[in-house]
């Protein structure tokens, strides 16, 4: 599926540029986007290095185990394929907490650590596991209590009540997350049978 979408984005884009007679847009975009990708990875290096260092301390001190134990009732239900007290659980909890608090910079390193841990349980190393898909369903529909960026935009635009969208945002996110988890379960059911 991803192969087809990827190819379609490129082919359709280049056809449109050709019809418009602007092939140079494609050339510029390739360079810019490729540089942006590398820049993102490099920007991540410092944060990843720091937070994985901190996380190792949390693991060595037994803090991650304690966290994993606290949320076990919740994770047993969402991630039945992950053994109890597995280190993935601590990382997943830290990722979700950081997301909720709007700490995107800390959320990504915890999330990638969670993926590493889930990968150790994965039987096909090039294929997404059930637990990974559930984790990403939660992560992409992440609940943020204070959507700080957009509140900032509203303040700058002179809103009389910049935070009035907090409630509506929470509602829309929650509905999105519930539907995502339901869809995830249905897909799993179908792929098992098929």
């Amino acid at each position, binding site marked *: 599926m991803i192969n087809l979408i990827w190819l379609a984005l*490129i082919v359709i884009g280049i056809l449109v540029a050709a019809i418009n007679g602007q092939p140079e847009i494609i050339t510029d975009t390739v360079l810019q986007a*490729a540089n942006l*990708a590398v820049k*993102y990875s490099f920007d991540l290096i410092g944060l*990843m290095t720091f937070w994985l*260092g901190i996380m190792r301390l949390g693991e060595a001190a037994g803090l991650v185990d304690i966290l994993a134990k606290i949320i076990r009732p919740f994770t047993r239900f969402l991630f039945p394929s992950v053994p109890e007290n597995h280190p993935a659980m601590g990382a997943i909890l830290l990722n979700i907490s950081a997301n909720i608090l709007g700490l995107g910079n800390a959320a990504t390193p915890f999330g990638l650590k969670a993926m*590493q841990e889930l990968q150790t349980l994965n039987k096909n190393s090039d294929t997404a596991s059930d637990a990974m898909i559930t984790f990403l369903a939660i992560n992409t529909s992440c609940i943020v209590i204070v959507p700080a960026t957009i509140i900032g935009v509203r303040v700058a635009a002179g809103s009389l009540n910049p935070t009035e969208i907090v409630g*509506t945002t929470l509602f829309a996110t929650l509905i999105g997350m519930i539907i995502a988890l339901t869809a995830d379960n249905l897909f799993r059911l179908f792929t098992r049978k098929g």
Partner: protein
Amino acid sequence: MLEQVIGILSKWTIPFLVLFIPTFAYFKGVKVYEEFIEGAEEGFKIAIKLIPYLVAMLVAIGIFRNSGAMNIMVGALSPVIKLFGIPGEILPLAIMRPLSGGGALGIATELINTFGPDSLIGRMASTMQGSSDTTFFVLTVYFGSVGISRYRHALWVGLIADFTSFVASVYIVNKMFG
């Protein structure tokens, strides 16, 4: 009140964690400096591993967007969504949201400034921007970091979540402010 509490929490969580975790570990007998370095080493490898995945995805999305193909898609879809009572002006945001975080924020900012932050469209754009994530980007980064290229149904689940949040945003803003 709640907003202030959350504001304080967001500000102090990271300093607290950076103080608490190493201190706690030290008193548990962990060799904090050595252990930190060992964990930190992994960070570099993971970040570098992402590059090919991100280049592939960002270039494809960039081509689709900058060529004008995305605008054509928006033009074709807007009469359809108007049938459902959804203002056509927010469609570009709905399509951009899962593809590009920066692009979506740009569109949302423009809508908020053009129609006013306290207009119906301004509130819809704010709610949509805050209630979903850049699905393509998140999947590329997270799966890329462990070398996974077969996503199974992950992309569908993410896009279903985005679509649901979009519809829910329009519905709730109409209901609360309409």
